[in-house]
């Protein structure tokens, strides 16, 4: 029979048996063989794998001295060269979860497959969701045996190079990667089944985990509008009449820059909207300024409320654009505006 896979197990100070909160600053240390929950882990792994060493570190130490901690762990892993690393489970302990996530990332960076376990809302998941494979646990450590059993099973799958099934089936925390699957029955039957389960108070699992929205640190406020130069951007599909640049009405990948030199207002004669996602009649026959308020902004410039308007207007169509295209266009516009030290942007989204 093949040699058992070697496993290094990571635990915090409490589960590693060196103490409780008072040992939260304990530096990285090594113990031989399985320790504490590691014994349950070893039992679950059976003779397929052997926990040869346990790394223990204090929660606070790991999160506050993360570089030193990682260096110490890397040294141990480099010496032992285990087939797998298993960290935790951390349940809902946030510092522990972050530490487990760091250990897993480190191991993976060294080419060693890694599995951890924690509650889906643990900071370790929220910070490193895409990068770690975490078995889903509750918050109650009394389920240790079952969580550890699932971690062992998943770890062995990784060790055997087997492809993982969907998160909901294999019991791990979704990593935000979504792929097509073939169910055994049509969507409308699954919808009714899910409704029935909810109504009956039976367990059910949503087919979608809604995450992935950006959190963007807000720009610091401007000090003084009167000293500020403002740039204008619109996703309303505004172009000079005739659309020589051929801005598309949907699925835009590009934006265009149009000169505002000497232009104090957008006129119906000179401008039109090619946006395919809403009724553009009003913009095209009454007043394009509704989708890019140049006339108003010029008035405020004239009265000194703002210092100046950036002479280039950025235009694209915000209709079915890919998120990646939007991110890229935004970054390109921002880069140009930063180069010219523009203070603020008004962006009209139709």
């Amino acid at each position, binding site marked *: 029979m093949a040699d058992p896979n070697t496993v290094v197990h990571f635990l915090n100070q409490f589960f590693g048996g060196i103490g409780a909160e008072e040992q939260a600053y304990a530096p990285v240390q090594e113990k031989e063989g399985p320790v504490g929950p590691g014994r349950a882990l070893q039992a679950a792994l059976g003779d397929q794998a052997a926990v040869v060493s346990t790394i223990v570190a204090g929660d606070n130490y790991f999160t506050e001295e993360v570089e030193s901690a990682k260096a110490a762990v890397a040294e141990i892993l480099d010496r032992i060269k285990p087939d797998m690393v298993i960290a935790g489970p951390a349940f809902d302990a946030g510092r522990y979860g972050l530490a487990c996530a760091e250990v897993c990332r480190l191991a993976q960076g060294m080419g060693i497959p890694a599995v951890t376990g924690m509650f889906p809302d643990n900071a370790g998941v929220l910070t490193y969701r895409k990068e770690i494979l975490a078995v889903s646990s509750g918050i109650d450590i009394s389920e240790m045996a079952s969580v550890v059993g699932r971690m062992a099973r998943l770890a062995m799958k990784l060790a055997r190079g087997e492809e993982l099934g969907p998160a909901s089936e294999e019991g791990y925390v979704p990593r935000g990667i979504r792929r097509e699957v073939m169910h055994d029955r049509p969507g409308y039957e699954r919808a009714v089944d899910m409704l029935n389960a909810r109504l009956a108070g039976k367990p059910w699992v949503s087919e979608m985990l809604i995450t992935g929205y950006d959190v963007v640190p807000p720009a610091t406020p401007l000090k003084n*509008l009167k000293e500020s130069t403002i740039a204008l951007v619109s996703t309303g599909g505004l172009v000079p009449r005739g659309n020589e640049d051929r801005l598309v009405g949907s699925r835009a990948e590009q934006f265009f820059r149009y000169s505002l030199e000497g232009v104090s207002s957008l006129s119906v004669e000179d401008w039109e909207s090619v946006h395919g996602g809403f009724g553009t009649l009003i913009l095209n026959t009454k007043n394009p300024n509704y989708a890019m308020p140049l006339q108003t902004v010029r008035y405020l410039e004239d009265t000194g409320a703002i210092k100046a308007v950036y002479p280039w207007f950025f235009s694209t169509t915000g209709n079915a654009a890919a998120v990646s295209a939007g991110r890229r266009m935004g970054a390109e516009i921002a880069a140009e505006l930063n180069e010219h030290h523009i203070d603020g942007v008004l962006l009209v989204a139709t």
Partner: protein
Amino acid sequence: MTAMPAIPLAVGANRVVRGVRVSHVCGDPALSAQKDWELGVRIVETALNSLVTAVSGPTLFEPSEPEPQEAAL
């Protein structure tokens, strides 16, 4: 600046100003030319004021109400 603030607020835009309608975000052609203009000024001023306001996350700014008119004597 949008007639649909829920969307930019959901996707991480930090300063969001409510406009009128999708097809005319920065004004209202149903109003008289004068009132439409005044509404447009209020919307843009709200937007500019948001740039000098500190925010900690996605924040909705509502354009201010018009000043109450003095009754004609």
